[in-house]
């Protein structure tokens, strides 16, 4: 089900080519517009559909099991932080609109630059801790879980 591209909407900008995880959205040499060169390697992941600024890409279900006449469309908006879907069934009895958040914060502003974080001290290096730990990994104020702290040992043999 692969994706396909509407001739009149595509301007050949190449956003889909840039994002496709499967490397199957290519620009047709004659028409200078995008198309799916290998439908049986398409996961219907919608990465290209979401990336297309002209809504020129759509999906027609895999021919070996999906009948014609359906529609699953999407608009992804980073500024508003939401994604909106519309599903229409072949018999037109089902028409669903669904909206979900894609982030809780302004897009792209809250991921820390770890080169700015203070360098780990030697005792941190020599411990089993990772960046920012032991925050979030304990109920109490203790450190990292170990075999000793949890009263455990590793034993060879058959245990269930």
């Amino acid at each position, binding site marked *: *089900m*692969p994706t396909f591209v509407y001739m009149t909407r595509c301007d050949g900008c190449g956003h889909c080519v840039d*994002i*496709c*995880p*499967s*490397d199957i959205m290519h620009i047709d040499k004659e028409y200078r517009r995008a198309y799916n*060169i290998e*439908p*049986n*390697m398409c996961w219907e*992941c919608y*990465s290209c559909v979401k990336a297309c600024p002209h809504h020129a890409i759509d999906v027609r*279900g*895999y*021919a*070996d*099991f*999906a009948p*014609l006449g*359906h*529609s699953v469309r999407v608009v*992804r908006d980073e500024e508003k932080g939401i*994604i909106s*879907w519309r*599903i229409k*069934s*072949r*018999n037109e*009895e*089902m028409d669903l609109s*669904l909206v979900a958040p*894609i*982030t*809780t914060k*302004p897009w792209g502003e809250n991921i*820390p630059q*770890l*080169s700015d*974080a203070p*360098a780990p001290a030697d005792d941190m290096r020599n411990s*089993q801790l*990772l960046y*920012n730990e032991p925050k*979030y*990994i*304990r109920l109490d104020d203790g450190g990292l*879980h*170990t*075999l000793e702290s*949890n*009263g*455990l*040992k*590793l*034993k*060879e043999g*058959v*245990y*269930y």
Partner: protein
Amino acid sequence: MAYKTIIEDNIDVLVAGAGLGGSGAAWEARYWGKDKNIVIAEKANINRSGAVAQGLYAINCYMGTRFGENNPEDHVRYARMDLMGMVREDLLFDMARHVDSAVHQFEEWGMPIMKNPETGTYLREGRWQIMIHGESYKPMVAEAATKSADKTFNRICVTHLLMDDAKENRVAGAVGFNVRTGNYHVFKSKTVIVGAGGASNIFKPRSVGEGAGRVWYAPWSSGSAYGLMIEAGAKMTQMENRIVLARFKDGYGPVGAYFLHLKTYTQNCDGEEYESKWFPELSKMVGKEYLDTEGQHLSHKPIPTCLRNHAFINEVAAGKGPIQMVTMEAFQDPHLEEIGWHNFLGMTVGQAVLWASTDVNPKYENPELTTSEPYVMGSHATGCGAWCSGPEDISPDEYFWGYNRMTTVEGLFGAGDAVGGTPHAFSSGSFTEGRLAAKAACQYIDDGKADGINVSQEQIERRKVDIYRPMEHYKVNRNEIVAGDVNPNYINPRQGLDRLQKMMDEYAGGVTVNYMTNETLLNIGLKKMKLLEEDLEKVAAKDIHELLRAWELKHRQLASESVMHHTLFRKETRWPGYYYRGDALKLDDENWHVLTVSRRDPKTGEYTMEKAPCYHLVGEDEE
């Protein structure tokens, strides 16, 4: 050919493949290696690459230790039970004790995690799963990784690891080509963290034609984690442990939220519960310790995934299919109905497309399920991957050689699908494994272990010739025929993939043989596999895109050969419902309560197999 050679020198940490595991590695490496040169080489675009490219609707590995929900050892015991005992409990405990810190950081970055309105804790789907709106999971994690890296190279298909010419069995970087420009890329690096993916598309899929793209695991998961490491001579473990998924038919939409959150259940064609009738016989096959038909509900041990598959497969073989998911009750609740659809839109849009196209409204119709073709990977309910060292404070001697998540090749680390024996890591656990590997890799460099690495010009030139051989082969032989793809001197990547899939299906226990194999079949399979390997020296690529497919195929072939050797070695049926050894149809704890470890000699291609002891977490006072 006129492709340029682009050399990136003096790298400290090279991340080969940046899905969740590789992204975690690149991100964390910056903290431990402030002064280090960190480089990412990614086959696609890091913003939408790997298994999480289209998003996730749940994080399946979260302990909730800060809320007093679970301790790491609880998760280890769960994974042990689900995998019929065959796990690396040191690695699992280590992953589980760190995983929560990754999840909470995702939330700080803006990941919408659903909350339980009564308790304020994350909304649980099941004991280990929490529910998220994770459409942008990958772009978010990718941004973190890219920020930490000095350079991110998108669209580089890494084909081989570079080996140190000064010291035996030490990694020295990687090589590959740019799938857009065709240029040859050389990454000279002190350490490599393989974050590449497991393998879809190595067993013949149930779908025919276009639908072959709607595999359960992403079609771009080309087994490169295994192909790269096997080729370099790293030891692998549990490669026989392929996974079969019970999923919505054709679309392979996920069932986790349906079972756990929507409380839907399955039934056969007569509307009957069918699992329990297969369990008494199955209990005799695997032993009461793994499936106690009377005591299971008392012990609170979940029934292993493979054993539930077994009941499904047998019920269908007995003529009682289709197995259907009873959604008609849950979907009457509009809130649950919405969740049911969001679940697909968040991670498997194709299933929504399929239901829309076939007029399946789960409110009025119970959708069909199926069991998938097998997949080889190491982060879902299975643990294929490299034999890696565990952490110093946990691992017994047999599991420890200095650096956490380092393979048996020095300086070569793994994360996610690349690490063997760590099932149930999923997205958050893979990211965590990447972080652990990154810290260890920085330590390895600081300890001077990477000093004196030398990569000869000969090696760089030899790999260049290797990489472009399929294009050269095409050019030389193409004009012998008029047109078309039938040529006596070569096969193209698609033809090679078809042959591999048919072979794996028929000899290594795919769907058309109801997941059955035996020693004779595997020996024939291995003979044919060798011939395929020879023919892949003659695979032809007419352009750079086909060259990408050619190398993906070679990685899949290396992974597949390993699967066959491991399956042949383990002479028992450890995971009924994943596959069956027809000549040894019982679980055999006396001889096979061990992990299988293999090594392919990079020079000769010969395999050696060994058993490694299986250690389990027990109470301090337990005997």
